[in-house]
């Protein structure tokens, strides 16, 4: 009787630890180096900047939105997003795209734009008027 509980307890602890470890692995990882993104071909969150010299293309027939992104080291890649242009795309400081690199371009499922905070600028104005 007692053996059953010891044995069961050991199994449960081992697998609980395994699950805890696996949960840390399952999240989609951030990637700031595009060479890794292109090599791995896994679903990642790629962080980088929009290349403003190469303009974006909106294809209304296929409902896609194509643009170029570069990372901090200057590696560029083409990003295809199935959807409309996100708000504040032009004014974004940096972008985070979630998706997978496939057939020569990055297929994004989601685009996050990081915009300059309007509250910080207001703060600066207030300080100016005070002095």
């Amino acid at each position, binding site marked *: 009787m007692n053996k*059953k*509980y010891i044995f*069961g*307890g050991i*199994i*449960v602890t081992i*697998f*609980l630890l*395994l*699950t805890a470890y*696996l*949960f840390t*692995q*399952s999240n989609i990882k951030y990637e700031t180096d595009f060479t890794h993104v292109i090599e791995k071909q*896994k*679903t990642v969150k790629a962080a980088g900047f929009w290349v403003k010299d190469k303009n974006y293309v909106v294809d209304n027939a296929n409902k896609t939105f194509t643009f170029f992104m570069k990372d901090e080291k200057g590696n560029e890649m083409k990003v295809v997003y199935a959807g409309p242009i996100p708000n504040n795309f032009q004014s974004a400081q940096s972008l985070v795209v979630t998706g997978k690199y496939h057939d020569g371009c990055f297929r994004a499922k989601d685009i996050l734009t990081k915009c300059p905070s309007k509250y910080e600028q207001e703060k600066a104005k207030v300080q100016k008027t005070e002095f």
Partner: protein
Amino acid sequence: MKAFALFKKDFKSEMRTRYAVNALAMFIVVTISVIFFSIGQERINESLTAGLFWVVIFFSAMSGLSRAFVSEEERGTNLTLQLIAGPSTVFTGKLLFNLILVFAMNIVIVVLYSLIFDAFVIKNMVLFVTSFILGNVGLAVSSTIIAAIISKAGAKGTLYPVLSFPILLPLILTSVQLTIFSIDGTKFEEAIVELMIVLSYDVIMIAVSYMLFDFIWKD
């Protein structure tokens, strides 16, 4: 093979009353038709499809699977069961019965779903079948042990989904993710982490159930 005899007894009494089967069938038909009428011809994305798929599975399971122990309690036959078989034998018999029910229910849901919804096209069949089997085993084990716990309580109908939700949550979240992967056509190797989570959930639930069932049953 007392466990199998118990399973046969449950199966026969289910065939006479058809209580669990009717509850499951009604729930599946109602939920799927509500989803079908509200979506219409609109093409929904894969994460929504997978989420709705598991909503149907979760609530159908909640409506029918508690019968395993509640019926014994209602008919007052649990004391006789305690006389003729040990706790783990009783649990094995009930688990077999619930496994059959869960598999039958989910196969019906999958068939109806793929007939009705255009978006529910599975690209990676191997991954889907593996995650389907692992997920069903986890669902059956958890629902059996929770049914045993709530059979002694007063408000059985409400207590069952309330108690099941936190216990089934890790399984359902991972299974939703796996269903999205199989609709997406993700490779098997990339989904191995999620599959391992479901597998270890199954092992934990089986081990815990067999350890704790003695205490629930003797009471």
